[in-house]
């Protein structure tokens, strides 16, 4: 029977020949991602139920990221619970402050993600890892507790939706614009419960980093997972990042696999897109919304805080000054160091930006760049919900790193193509 890549991975994890959409399966989990907001409660639940065991201390990857370094006493206590538990359980891959980074940038970079695996994490953007031909999805704390203890979870096999990215992407338009265009098309619940499988020629020239921006936002269309097939770009990234066990199995969708729906996007016709408040699906071509005044620009997060993103922003900020508060957050310590080595910090400094340590921070309205009432922020993050980055009456505009940088220079939503020669 023909299957999609998502079905094949889930069938393997369930020890079955085949699985069909809608089927309930019990799947073996390969990697569990843990961070400082959702894991401490999971640990407390396990303690409360007298469950002492973790299924495999080498397959649970722990990084505090949301409020790290601790922003207040309460978050310091969350971190303490996480630290103590990780030590007690002998968690092998624990990233303490100094090595900790935004989870979805850190795990692939540190070589924890392999094609064909089933990965879960206590965070909705865990779908990011699908960029490496893996099945990856976000879960809450109770599921996390169950996964930590048993290494297994039940899943309903999702139907798949095929997203065909046609054409090639014009200059000044980036994978962030592509995914914002996709979500504009599907709506925030158009892929509810479904696997979003991205295919098409536009992916060919996209780096592994740029692909992560796409799968990262599958959840913003309601998707269960986002997934991109394996190719030589995937292989190259894995060759450079995988540590230790470099073996993995590559699955691909059968040519006659069934898709519940197909969405086609002609990337060659795209212009930069801005998702206006308060939904990621509120995308507008920049020609229709340039000029809106901003108070802050934010360049970072699991969506767009990787080295490539910082290079794109620096390319525009070089030799220019920002007109508004501009916060640059490299997503991991390795990205931070690379940006420094490449001289990007010099550019950000001269432009008048502040550079923070790797953290989720302001992306979720935690700290390090909170908005006051009425303020507007142009941001490379993935959510622009009410109150997401601060006051319930503040506003977040989602854009690519290029649009964020150009808008920072002018203090208003600005088409980055005027800065790219």
């Amino acid at each position, binding site marked *: 029977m023909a299957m999609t890549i998502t079905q094949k991975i889930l069938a393997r994890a369930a020890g079955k020949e085949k699985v069909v959409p809608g089927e309930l399966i019990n799947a073996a989990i390969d990697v569990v991602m843990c961070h400082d907001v959702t894991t401490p409660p999971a640990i407390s639940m396990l303690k409360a139920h007298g469950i002492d065991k973790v299924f495999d201390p080498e397959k649970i990857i722990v990084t505090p990221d949301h409020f790290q370094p601790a922003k207040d006493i309460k978050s310091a206590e969350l971190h303490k619970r996480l630290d103590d538990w990780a030590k007690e359980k002998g968690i092998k891959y624990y990233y303490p402050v100094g090595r900790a980074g935004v989870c979805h940038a850190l795990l692939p970079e540190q070589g924890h993600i392999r094609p064909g695996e089933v990965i879960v994490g206590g965070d909705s953007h865990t779908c990011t890892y699908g960029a490496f031909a893996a099945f990856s999805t976000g879960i809450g704390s109770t*599921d996390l507790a169950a996964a930590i203890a048993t290494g297994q979870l039940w899943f309903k096999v999702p139907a798949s939706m095929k997203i065909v990215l046609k054409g090639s992407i014009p200059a000044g338009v980036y994978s962030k614009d592509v995914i914002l265009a996709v979500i504009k098309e599907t709506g925030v619940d158009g892929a509810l419960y479904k696997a979003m499988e991205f295919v098409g020629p536009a992916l060919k020239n996209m780096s592994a980093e740029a692909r992560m921006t796409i799968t990262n936002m599958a959840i913003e269309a*309601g998707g269960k997972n986002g997934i991109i097939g394996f190719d030589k770009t995937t292989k190259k990234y894995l060759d450079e990042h995988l540590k230790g066990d470099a073996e993995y199995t590559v699955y691909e969708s059968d040519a006659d696999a069934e898709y519940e729906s197909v969405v086609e996007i002609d990337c060659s016709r795209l212009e930069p897109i801005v998702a206006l408040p308060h939904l990621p699906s509120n995308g507008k071509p920049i020609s229709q919304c340039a000029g809106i005044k901003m108070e802050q620009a934010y360049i970072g997060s699991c969506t767009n805080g990787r080295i490539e993103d910082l290079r794109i922003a620096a390319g525009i900020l070089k030799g220019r000054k920002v007109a508004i508060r501009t916060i640059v957050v490299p997503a991991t310590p390795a990205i931070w160091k690379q940006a420094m080595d490449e001289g990007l910090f010099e550019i950000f400094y001269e432009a008048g930006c502040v550079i923070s340590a790797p953290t989720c921070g302001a992306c979720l309205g935690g700290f390090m760049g909170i908005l006051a009432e009425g303020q507007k922020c142009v941001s490379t993050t993935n959510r622009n919900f009410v*109150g997401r980055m601060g006051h319930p009456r503040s506003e977040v505009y989602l854009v690519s790193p290029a649009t964020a940088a150009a808008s920072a220079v002018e203090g208003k939503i600005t088409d980055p193509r005027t800065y790219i020669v």
Partner: protein
Amino acid sequence: MAKAHVYKRDHINTDEIIPARYLNTDDVDELAKHCMEDLDAEFAGKCSHGDVIVAGDDFGCGSSREHAVWALQGAKVGAVIAQSFARIFYRNAINCGFYVIELEDAVNKIADGDEIEIDYAAGVIKNKTAGKDINFTPLPDFALEIIRDGGLLEHIKKNR
């Protein structure tokens, strides 16, 4: 009897149910104080034991924070009735032993302030104010069992 609090909105997200600025704790009573704060600052004050929230499509979209369910449980909300739910929220709710009901056109079948009574297994909402019975498809048995046991971990323990 439960009172309905109707929000004629789609995509009520986890940032509205419990804003991230309160995620530095998992203390249920603390979370309950801020339940629904960015949508309706009055909510925590006006919700009495067992009251239900009624909403449109995609309730609970956004983050995977189970804190959203805990805040609702802490605020003594008995159930959420919505036209549809976001996937992670729905799963979290069942895992926490919290009732979620999918009901087509819910916001037009139940009015704000209506007194209702719910039979979860039979799939019937008795709208006492309107004097009408509304049918819904009950949760599958295994989900009802998890909820009755008080959540997934209790359920796993009980069945071990």
